[in-house]
């Protein structure tokens, strides 16, 4: 009888330790509270080229993360990339002429969307479109342009 109680105790401690470890992994390692999907409102931006931008990439304003990219697909009429941006609930008074550009963090880092606030009094809301967008810089284009300029300069 005593022995079986000890077994119960050990199993209970084992299961509790496992669940506690999962809880710590959730809270301390993966920060479960940060930017879950489907909270906040969604705005849309059309980009000529999204480069290496991916879904769930961060959206920052002034370097502070305020949302995530929730979907990227091609608009069949405009032949431009349609990017859905989900902004967290607290940030609901962005000016309606806010501009979006795709940037790279560091030289080799991930790509993210940087928002630059405008000056209009009315705010962006669910489903609005961002009018001013700037595409990702494609390294090959820049190098190509540079070589072309060099070649043109050399002939003079």
């Amino acid at each position, binding site marked *: 009888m005593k022995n079986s109680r000890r077994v119960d105790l050990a199993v209970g401690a084992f299961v509790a330790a496992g669940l506690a470890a999962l809880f710590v992994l959730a809270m*301390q390692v993966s920060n479960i509270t940060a930017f879950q999907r489907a909270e906040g409102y969604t705005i849309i931006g059309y980009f000529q080229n999204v480069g290496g931008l991916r879904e769930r990439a961060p959206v920052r304003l002034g370097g502070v993360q305020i949302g995530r990219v929730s979907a990227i697909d091609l608009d069949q009429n405009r032949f431009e990339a349609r990017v859905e941006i989900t902004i967290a609930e607290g940030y609901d008074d962005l000016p309606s002429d806010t501009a979006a550009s795709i940037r790279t963090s560091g030289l080799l880092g991930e790509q993210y969307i940087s928002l630059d606030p405008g000056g209009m009094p009315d705010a962006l809301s669910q489903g609005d479109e961002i009018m001013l967008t700037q595409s990702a810089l494609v390294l090959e284009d820049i190098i190509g342009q540079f070589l072309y300029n060099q070649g043109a300069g050399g002939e003079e």
Partner: protein
Amino acid sequence: MTDWLERLGSSTLSNMATLGRAILFLLRVVAGCGELVRRPRLLMRELYSVGVLTLVIIVVSGLFVGMVLSLQGYYTLVDFGAEQSLGVLVALSLTRELGPVVTALLFAGRAGSALTAEIGLMKATEQLAGMEMMAVDPERRVIAPRLIAALISLPLLAVIFTLLGIFGAYVVGTALLGVDSGAFWSQMQAQVSFADDVLNGVIKSVLFGLVAGWIAVFNGYDCMPTSQGVSRATTQTVVVTSLVVLALDFVLTALMFD
């Protein structure tokens, strides 16, 4: 030449027959799991011998795997000035891959082999046949609690392994290598997602638990009832479990993280 083909054919046929027996066996055992609701005490004892007794090796190896990962990762990252990302490297590799896989391999060695030997010896000493004589279904009474215990234990062990690995990496990284502890945690929290990384790791380890438990109890149940048969089945359990876990891990990784 015909000899060789004949041997290939017969070994293929016998392997297929074994696989078929294993699948039918699993279905019967799963169908017999209802018994455990009425007798949770059976499960308790198995959870103790399968889970609690494996805890020591998991704790120790988790700590050391994390510490080594931290050391090796640091030497590569420091060349790029990215040693602040040490936490991300350690946490992602542990939650996604090393936690579930290494735990499953250790589990096969520590608990799977014991399960096979125990059941095989029960068969060799005709305890299983004796149970059947007394109208006690050994699949419900002996096999089902062991399979379910493996299924429950392995995810818990994998989570504990992962957490201790990250803790070991933290201790080595901050105390020995001088990585800033704030950057270690904050970069980790920014990059590791609960749904995509931690939960997928847990799903992996549940599947590994099912596979490891299944192979262990089937090999014991299916072994030749001699001392040589039991020893061969025990070896078989460890080898097959390791191979299946590694192959399954590749498939799961390809499906989960595109």
